[in-house]
């Protein structure tokens, strides 16, 4: 007997291996990460990372995984009524809830009141402008399951907090100032839940078909009340996933893909109904069949932002806009009022405009305001500078008001608006060079004080206009839709009866378990999934409403330029008119510290010196520099000049920068400071040249390069101490400008090469983050680059760019490992995200300092990674390559497969030098200093005979290649295995010959330097001065021709 048990034990241990060998495939498909066996190599043997990857692979792929996990989760759920799945809460009677909704259920949102108030204000503003433009707008909150079915949540500890959920705060606020467009659903659903079958499935986060029907009927009535001529809703059948999203999560089953493109539908029955767009979430899934019936054409966007950034929808094409948000996701709603108002304001009728005199703006601290030529010129000293708007009427129950500010500036910065009274709130807005129009909803209160900090650093602004836009309420007797207005869905009693019959027992005695509640709801109508798909296909074939985003860099208007860049003549005119304008000038009281001692001296001047080593981004061959400072006495005008720091040789002669300095502050632009450095700045009274000051810090005008990515970019600045940085090379971090010294081979090799060739300062913005992903799924705890939220790594980078002036000339990107890790991100996803990151984030947020049409984006291919998996790595590389080929001014700055590794996925110090030189070569190519930047590439693979292949290569910078023999890195795959290679050697200057050990039959794949850790002991280099490597290659060749024209990276 003991032997039998021993054999059972051994048998159990061997079962996974046996199942794998036999090829038993369990039907249950538990969510896997799809990991691949890490590649084995000598160095990997002593690398913990390799074993970690191996461990993860075994866990992910061993054959008993699915049944074991399923069984364990089943036991946890059915026996212990619990789960280890973090996103799911197990309630009583097997009811499942989304864990996030439990936060709402526990009513701990008191600290969110300000956020909620602001959200409501934005919704009011959104409602008013959309309706003023002649369109319809509705907003609805899809209630959490915990809100409709709290009785099944189970035991929940008392909250020590304030006993209010975010949604309750929302309702409280909405009750005070009625939001006509708000369709309240929670009361209706609660009312309906006791009358019909369950409105939410036990195992799903979202309402089911019946719940959606209740919501849809109310929406339908709301729309039809306005005389839209809607037909009664047609009730389709629903095919519900028996598991539901929560049970899928709980059981560890695969979840459906979350690719959410803009979807188009057409209403075949009433195509003449208005076109509509819906911004929503997964609650929309069951609502869609009804929504399609309420519009002629329906576009659906799943996005947290309105309008979405990535779908390119044109809101003006729709007559009806619906915004749906899940209760638990209210906090994530982002409404871009500036964009929406800029779209709809020109079409708005019944809009009252109240201009506010900009003269009435008063300074608060450290700011100079100068009213002239009908506009207010603002000289800001940076963070401390604040001005206050005149008292403006706020919103009330009869009229909703929005403040409209037009601000012009030559540089980018961050503007901060503080609502000082009533509802204290802080809003930040990005200012871009040129004119920015800002819309601020005004809260419901008697009076309002708004203070504005125009910038984070010294700069110029012109406040062109202040307007209050008023939206008077139309006198209507209509009550808001969220008040008690229960729709009797029994109008369609037959269908309801059918539902009740089909779904078995009602709530009171629903003991059937998870899988039975809605599974059988198969009404004898059309299948909605199919109908939706059909309608979607039809709509996709028709024209769609899409905006064409353009990414041109903004240019400073000539008028603004003339105002900022005063000539001597201007100065004379201004001086002559000073007496007339002086009464309009207002100044903040400036308090200086003792060290400056300005206030106590009668005549003195002090320049706000630039940070030591600061580099201004050039525009063309020069830069316009904002100079500011303080003085005491009566200077008349302030002049500035630039001298060489070493020799004091004059670079820019004395130039009037501020013709009318006021109240101890001066600021102005010193135009056309030529590229070069290091410089010092000098300022003086133009009426008394003896009163002058020379800055002590060195600064220059040159090239700024942003360095982004993850650890291999980080290593640019840390690995290697054998080089010395050129005197004109600097780096910029959150801590400011600093010398690079001798640390960081790649950064020094890169920077030095550019400095030596161009002869001007080069500044590297070090904003990489170890382990950072591009996409959200690849956020392993250190952030991801698509995240634009405050405090994100991308926001931090933008802050840095603003600190250096808002413009850069190049961006170098070394990233991808985090997205490749564990096969987290697919090739398609990475490519889409990287394109969006380049076009919609980087190029939209940062001024292009280069002479190219778009900011040059330089991508360095991912380096080798011992222990990494081939497919995910290659997928990211393919995506990177695809992006360099499909996005304008995007460059494959360096390939890295040939570079020597040190450690897991980093390079040796010498390899970083090579990498730095290669990227510098790309920069020099873009600057027109070099004729090539990429190495040779494969053009054709030709079969000579069944044992010989010729690889034809196309040179770029070189004419021949090395080595002559023993070339490594090539692989020929056929019939599911690798074809042994006898020899790879130099045949002629354009041909590599591969001699195969076995004859090649059938189709084959040819690969060169492919995968996570290709064999690059002896790769191909051209004979160009920097010996560039042959680029990686992958293609399939077929027996018919055995010839393949280059297409190494098919487009995703």
């Amino acid at each position, binding site marked *: 007997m003991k032997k039998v048990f021993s054999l059972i034990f051994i048998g159990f241990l061997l079962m996974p291996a046996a199942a794998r060998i036999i090829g038993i495939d369990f039907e249950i498909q538990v969510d896997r990460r799809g990991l691949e066996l890490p590649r084995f190599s000598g160095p990997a043997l002593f690398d913990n990372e390799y074993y970690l990857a191996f*461990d993860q692979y075994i866990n992910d792929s061993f054959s008993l995984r699915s049944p074991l996990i399923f069984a364990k989760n089943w036991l946890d759920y059915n026996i212990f009524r619990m789960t280890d799945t973090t996103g799911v809460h197990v309630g009583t009677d097997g009811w499942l809830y989304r864990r996030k909704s439990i936060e709402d259920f526990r009513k701990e949102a008191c600290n969110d009141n300000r956020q909620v108030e602001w959200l409501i204000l934005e919704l009011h503003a959104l409602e008013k402008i959309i309706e003023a433009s002649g369109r319809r707008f509705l907003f609805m909150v899809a209630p959490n399951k915990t809100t409709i079915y709290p009785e099944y949540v189970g035991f929940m500890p008392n909250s020590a907090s304030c006993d209010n959920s975010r949604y309750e705060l929302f309702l409280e606020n909405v009750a005070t100032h009625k939001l006509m467009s708000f369709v309240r659903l929670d009361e209706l659903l609660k009312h309906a839940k006791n009358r019909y079958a369950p409105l939410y499935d036990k195992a799903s986060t979202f309402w089911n078909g019946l719940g959606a029907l209740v919501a849809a009927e109310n929406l339908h009535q709301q729309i039809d009340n306005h005389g839209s001529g809607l037909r009664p809703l047609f009730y389709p059948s629903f095919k519900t996933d028996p598991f539901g999203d929560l049970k899928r999560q709980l059981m560890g089953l695969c979840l459906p893909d979350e690719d959410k493109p803009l979807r188009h539908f057409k209403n075949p029955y009433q195509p003449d109904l208005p076109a509509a767009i819906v911004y929503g979430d997964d609650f929309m899934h069951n609502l869609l069949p009804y929504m399609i019936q309420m519009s002629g054409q329906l576009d659906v966007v799943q996005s947290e932002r309105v309008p979405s950034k990535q779908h390119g929808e044109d809101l003006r094409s729709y007559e009806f806009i619906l915004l749906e948000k899940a209760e638990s996701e209210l906090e994530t709603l982002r409404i871009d009022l500036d964009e929406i108002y800029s779209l709809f304001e020109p079409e708005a009728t019944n809009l009252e405009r109240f201009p506010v005199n900009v003269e009435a703006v008063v300074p608060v601290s450290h700011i100079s305001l100068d009213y002239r030529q009908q506009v207010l010129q603002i000289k800001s000293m940076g963070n401390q500078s604040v001005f206050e708007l005149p008292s403006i009427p706020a919103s009330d129950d009869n009229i909703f008001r929005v403040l409209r500010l037009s601000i012009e500036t030559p540089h980018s910065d961050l503007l901060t608006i503080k609502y000082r009274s009533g509802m204290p709130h802080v809003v930040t807005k990005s200012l871009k060079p040129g004119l920015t129009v800002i819309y601020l909803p005004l809260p419901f209160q008697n009076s309002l004080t708004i203070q504005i900090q125009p910038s984070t650093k010294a700069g110029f602004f012109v406040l062109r206009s202040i307007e209050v836009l008023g939206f008077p309420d139309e006198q209507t007797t209509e009550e808001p839709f969220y008040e008690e207005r229960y729709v009797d869905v029994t109008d369609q009693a037959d269908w309801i009866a059918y539902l009740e019959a089909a779904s078995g027992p009602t709530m009171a005695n629903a003991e059937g378990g998870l899988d039975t509640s809605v599974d059988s709801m198969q009404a004898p109508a059309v299948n909605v999934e199919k109908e939706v798909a059909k309608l979607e296909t039809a709509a996709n074939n028709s024209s769609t409403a899409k905006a064409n985003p353009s990414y041109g860099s903004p240019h400073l208007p000539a008028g603004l330029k003339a105002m900022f860049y005063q000539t001597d003549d201007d100065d004379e005119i201004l001086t002559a008119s000073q007496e007339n304008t002086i009464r309009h000038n207002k100044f903040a009281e400036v308090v200086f510290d003792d060290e400056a001692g300005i206030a106590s001296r009668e005549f003195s001047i002090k320049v706000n010196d630039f940070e030591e080593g600061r580099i201004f981004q050039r525009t063309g061959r020069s830069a316009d520099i904002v100079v500011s400072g303080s003085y005491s006495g009566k200077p008349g005008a302030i002049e500035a000049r630039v001298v060489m720091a070493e020799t004091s040789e004059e670079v820019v002669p004395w130039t009037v920068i501020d013709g009318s300095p006021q109240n101890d502050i001066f600021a102005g632009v010193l135009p056309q400071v030529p590229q070069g450095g290091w410089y010092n700045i000098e300022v003086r009274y133009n009426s008394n040249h003896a009163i002058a000051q020379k800055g002590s810090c060195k600064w220059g005008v040159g090239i700024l390069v942003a360095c982004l990515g993850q650890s291999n970019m980080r290593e640019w600045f840390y690995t290697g101490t054998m080089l010395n940085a050129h005197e004109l090379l600097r780096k910029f971090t959150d801590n400011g400008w600093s010398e690079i010294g001798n640390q960081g081979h790649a950064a020094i090799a890169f920077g030095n090469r550019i400095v030596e060739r161009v002869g001007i300062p080069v500044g590297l913005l070090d904003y990489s983050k170890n382990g950072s992903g591009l996409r959200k799924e690849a956020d392993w705890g250190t952030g991801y680059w698509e995240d634009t939220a405050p405090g994100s790594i991308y926001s931090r980078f933008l802050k840095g760019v603003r600190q250096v002036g808002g413009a850069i000339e190049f961006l170098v990107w070394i990233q991808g490992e985090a997205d490749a890790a564990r096969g987290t991100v697919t090739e398609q996803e990475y490519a889409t995200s990287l394109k969006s990151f380049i076009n919609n984030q980087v190029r939209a947020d940062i001024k292009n300092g280069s002479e190219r049409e778009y900011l040059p984006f330089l991508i360095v291919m991912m380096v080798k990674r011992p222990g990494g998996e081939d497919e995910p790595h290659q997928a990211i590389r393919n995506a990177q390559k695809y992006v360099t080929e499909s996005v304008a001014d995007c460059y494959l700055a360096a390939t890295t497969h040939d570079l020597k590794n040190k450690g897991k996925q980093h390079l040796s110090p010498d390899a970083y030098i090579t990498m730095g030189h290669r990227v510098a070569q790309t920069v020099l190519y873009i600057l027109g200093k070099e004729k090539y930047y990429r190495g040779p590439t494969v053009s054709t693979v030709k079969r000579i005979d069944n044992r010989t292949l010729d690889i034809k290569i196309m040179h770029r910078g070189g004419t021949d290649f090395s080595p002559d023999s023993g070339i490594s890195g090539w692989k020929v795959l056929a019939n599911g295995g690798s074809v042994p290679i006898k020899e790879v050697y130099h045949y002629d200057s354009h041909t590599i010959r591969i001699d195969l050990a076995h004859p090649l039959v059938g189709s084959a794949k040819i690969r060169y330097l492919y995968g996570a850790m290709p064999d690059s002991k002896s790769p191909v280099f051209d004979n160009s001065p920097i010996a560039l490597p042959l680029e990686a290659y992958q293609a399939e060749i077929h027996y018919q021709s055995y010839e393949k024209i280059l297409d190494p990276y098919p487009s995703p």
Partner: protein
Amino acid sequence: MVFSTTIFLFAFLPAVIVCYYMQRLLFQKRPGNAVLLFFSYIFYLYGAAGFLLILLVSTFADYLLGLLIERNPRHRRMWLSLSVFLNLGLLVYFKYANFFVEEINAVVGHFGFSPIEWQHVILPIGISFFTFQKLSYIIDVYRRKSRALENVFDFALYVAMFPQLIAGPIVRFSFIRDQLRGRSESSDMFYRGIMRFCWGLAKKVMIASSCGAIADVIFVLDPRLLDTKFAWLGAIAYTLQIYFDFSAYSDMAIGLGMLFGFKLPENFKRPYSALSITEFWRRWHISLSSWFRDYLYIPLGGNREGMVKTCINMAVVFILCGLWHGANWTFLLWGLYHGLFLILERLIGLRDIPGEKYRFVRRATTLLIVIVGWVFFRSEDISQAIQYLGVMFTASDLPLSYELSLALNYRNILFMMTALTVFFMPGDFSGISYLTGKKGPTMLLAGALMILLLLPYCAALIVGGSSSPFIYYRF
């Protein structure tokens, strides 16, 4: 590699069993030491790839030094000193250098001096265990209690045998010497090995992990949400977790040894049934406490040089015993805490009370002292320990926090309740001995159920990621 992982259960273990017995089939007269050694190094490589060389070199060095001690009587003291220096040197460097540098930097920082630049040292897994094993070998050879091993592979297997390499038990050379060459495997032993391994696996994966889930939440809970009852719950949960975690490892190690014919020493003997702290240390981590007794306490003089010296010796031993667990003030304090109670028991004669007298009170008091001691052991630093103990011994009553309510699910409560039975079991009761020791169909059926039900459930918990690493893995 850790026992409670998929790779160990479903790849390594079947592979080593199959290879070992294949070798036995093919070469019946040779024990499968080569197979075990090969797999032991793979086992170590998998968990500490970068440190295999250290294990190999230090093993070879001690092998040579052992031979030198035996064959070179005139310099045997020198070779012993060299071995002790090398072994303790490595241990101190890897285990304590970071701690020392941090403490020194904290002190010099107060005086405005710049800190020592230091690259953080990573601790090689199992170094505390295999270092003590090698020291016991060298000292036994020096004391002429054992002969030095001639065969380097046998010695290497003694040091690196995978069942006890990472977390013990610390096997004395004298205990296992004969088994290295002359052991015999049997189906009965194999069966008992399986049962012991499964027993350990279930203790670890089900019970220790559940208790750990509760303890982990409570020990990181915001102090403002912690009240007396939850503080006690946390301390008890950790008391159970550490026992079930560590004893489970020992069970699995002993069970694995039995699969290959080895009989490894017992490491635990119902420690929470002890009637005094002195007895507790005879029942808890027996291989370590007896190592300290034989190789430190007795050489220091033991109890032969008067009460004062005895007390000093005991304090030294327990401070070092605390530090053996890790470079942290909390471990030192924990060792000192136990040392003080041992001294107290000796001074007031508590250890001499006859076994049955005041049994309940003594057992409860001992358990209370031990539970409080574990608070030092579990806390991140001394201030947390003091704060936590303050909550334990100050009456307060707060509502249950949401985080804790999640940990207090039916599964964790059921397994913790099961674990609580150890507080009440007789001191000489052994569950696994009860299951495997008696003949008869009932026990066999229980064994079968254990294999057929518990093993797949444990495997599912492991694959599902519900199990945490062994606590003693990091020592």
